[in-house]
């Protein structure tokens, strides 16, 4: 350990913290207790101050216990308020969080005025000072990391069933109250251990952001857990690297993280995490905002195109002379589109050589007639199937033109075709 430079030490420390916080945060978020983590962090401040006042030193073990004790008192108060008064749980959390934090700030200013106050170093607990990580801090972090990982491995299925269906878990005989306590205790320990590095104000972000980000990429708990840990770790690496000037685009040539002009590590880690969250929120396939907008737009477009083809077929079908001349007003009438939209789609059909311009309007080409017939046939088969099937329990996620044969099977399709033919509504399609 003595061979490691300061920067490496800090990097390892924050990465361990980021991974562990991300993983326990995953469960905290799924269990809807993420704000309790925030409360634990903020409530720790008066605990730290009181521990300092009582013991007079900056022995981390004593401070740690003070922080933990204050956190426990906070949780007890929240539970009391939520269960025995009319206060809602989130209001109770907010009240306890801000009260304790305010009390802590007051204690901080009192301590600052004391003779040994300047050397207390307690101010750094507000936003953390990862740069001052010592060997023993690293050891504590490693120990906690091993413990948490071991716990999450051992109790994986227990936590899973607890979070998903606590009633069922209790009925099966799992001690849900104890399991909850273990989960919350783990959260409390990780929170308090992370305070020197990231600080009271932002520790909650380290717990919540990786889990929320992971949710955009997976729908399974196992991968979500691992991803959450990875994201927390990566955010920590990036944040520490930027703050220590290693990604030194702001010009400092001094790469020592204890240099006073460096940017604070804690907030930078959180910002890196937020950046990853924002990117995921926008760009994740399936669940990202932009991707969903894109896929909705594509779906709408494809639906309109099929509607266009069907309209062309139907107008042709019902005309006296075939192939019929389709006019713009008739398309507008049939579909209820604006003139601009109708023109646009007719032009598109022209570009694809499915219709050709003739005096008076457009007319289906041979290729156009075939494609329009195919689309209309599939549409009418689906329509008929859905109309008569009261007991449908089929999962129809893709009612694609080409997939009807595949999804319903040849027998069903043959029967539907027969019925459509009897109604005189089966489009003639040349076998491909």
């Amino acid at each position, binding site marked *: 350990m003595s061979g490691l430079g300061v920067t490496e030490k800090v990097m390892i420390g924050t990465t361990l913290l980021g991974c562990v916080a991300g993983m326990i945060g995953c469960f905290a978020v*799924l269990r809807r207790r993420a704000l309790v983590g925030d409360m634990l962090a903020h409530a720790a401040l008066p605990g730290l101050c009181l521990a300092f006042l009582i013991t007079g030193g900056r022995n981390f073990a004593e401070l740690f216990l003070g922080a933990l004790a204050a956190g426990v008192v906070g949780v007890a108060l929240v539970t009391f308020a939520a269960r025995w008064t009319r206060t809602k749980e989130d209001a109770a959390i907010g009240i306890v969080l801000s009260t304790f934090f305010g009390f802590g700030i007051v204690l901080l200013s009192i301590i600052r005025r004391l003779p040994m106050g300047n050397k207390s170093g307690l101010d750094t607990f507000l936003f953390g000072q990862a740069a001052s990580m010592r060997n023993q801090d690293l050891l504590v972090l490693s120990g906690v990391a091993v413990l948490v990982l071991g716990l999450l491995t*051992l*109790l*994986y*299925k*227990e936590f*899973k*069933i607890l*979070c*998903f*269906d606590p*009633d*069922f878990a*209790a*009925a*099966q*005989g*799992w001690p849900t109250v104890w399991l909850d306590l273990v989960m919350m205790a783990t959260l409390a320990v990780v929170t308090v251990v992370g305070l020197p590095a990231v600080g009271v104000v932002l520790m909650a972000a380290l717990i919540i952001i990786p889990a929320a980000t992971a*949710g955009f990429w*997976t*729908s*399974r*708990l196992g991968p*979500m857990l691992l991803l959450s840990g990875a994201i927390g770790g990566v955010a920590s690496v990036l944040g520490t690297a930027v703050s220590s000037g290693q990604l030194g685009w702001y010009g400092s040539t001094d790469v020592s993280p204890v240099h006073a002009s460096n940017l604070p590590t804690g907030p930078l880690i959180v910002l890196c995490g937020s950046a990853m969250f924002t990117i995921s929120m926008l760009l994740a396939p399936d669940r990202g905002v932009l991707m969903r907008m894109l896929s909705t737009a594509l779906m709408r477009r494809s639906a309109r195109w099929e509607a266009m083809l069907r309209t062309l077929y139907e107008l042709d079908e019902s005309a006296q002379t075939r192939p019929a001349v389709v006019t713009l007003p008739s398309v507008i009438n049939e579909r209820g589109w604006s003139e601009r939209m109708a023109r646009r789609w007719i032009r598109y059909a022209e570009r694809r050589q499915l219709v050709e311009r003739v005096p008076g309007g457009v007319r289906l080409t041979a290729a156009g007639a075939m494609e329009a017939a195919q689309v209309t046939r599939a549409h009418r088969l689906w329509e008929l199937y859905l109309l008569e099937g*009261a*007991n*449908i*329990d089929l*999962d129809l996620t893709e009612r694609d033109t080409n997939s009807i044969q595949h999804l319903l099977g040849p027998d069903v399709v043959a029967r539907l075709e027969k019925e459509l033919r009897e109604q005189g509504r089966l489009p003639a399609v040349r076998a491909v």
Partner: protein
Amino acid sequence: MITTAPPVELHDVTVAYHRKPVLWDIDLTVPDSSLVGIVGPNGAGKTTLIKAVMGLVPLTSGKVEIYGQPYQAQRALVGYVPQRESVDWDFPVTVRDVVLMGTYGRLGWFRRPGRAETSRAMQCLEQVGVAGLADRQIRQLSGGQQQRVFLARALAQDAQIYFMDEPFAGVDAATESAIIKLLQTLRGRGKTVLVVHHDLQTVSDYFDHVVLLNLRLVASGPTATTFTTENLHTTYGGRLTILDKAAEAVRLNRPS
């Protein structure tokens, strides 16, 4: 002489929330190998009844026995299908994961489900007809499919007694008939199934025993003799619309 204790027995069970009684002095014996319907108006304590038997709500007084023993000793014999609303359907688990949870009880602490558990889960999924959805995330299921998954989970528990809370609520006709067939199969295998039911018109078709509940036990026994207009009147008080339905239900099923 061998006396076999009944599957479920309640003695003087009272449950109160904040000093308001929800169940009052319930004395109930459930016969073996039967399909039992629990009916009553909203707020009658039907869900509380099965939760009280399973120890999910504390008893203010009285005791519950499963085959003559307290519930805590007999957990392995009881399967549970809770109401669909009680679960977070946004949770990142697949259908298979949910059914595997039914096997957790037998696995015990720290052990992970293995190949035996997975194949059992797939068997249960096939029994309810949704084996093809095993890898689907539960958010994407329809109401009927969700209910079937819950049932599969209960089946994976391999229990003797099953408690089901409104399993027919909000499911399509195909799922409803699939469920009732499954329940009848379970009864055929000697299991006892207690179902909180909301639809009076199907009680006589589905259940051989019925429990009429409204805070206190109004009546319980074989459907033919217990599901009477008079008992329904007592259970539902003066709620006429329900009474009409009930009278109709009784009339249709009584041999003229």
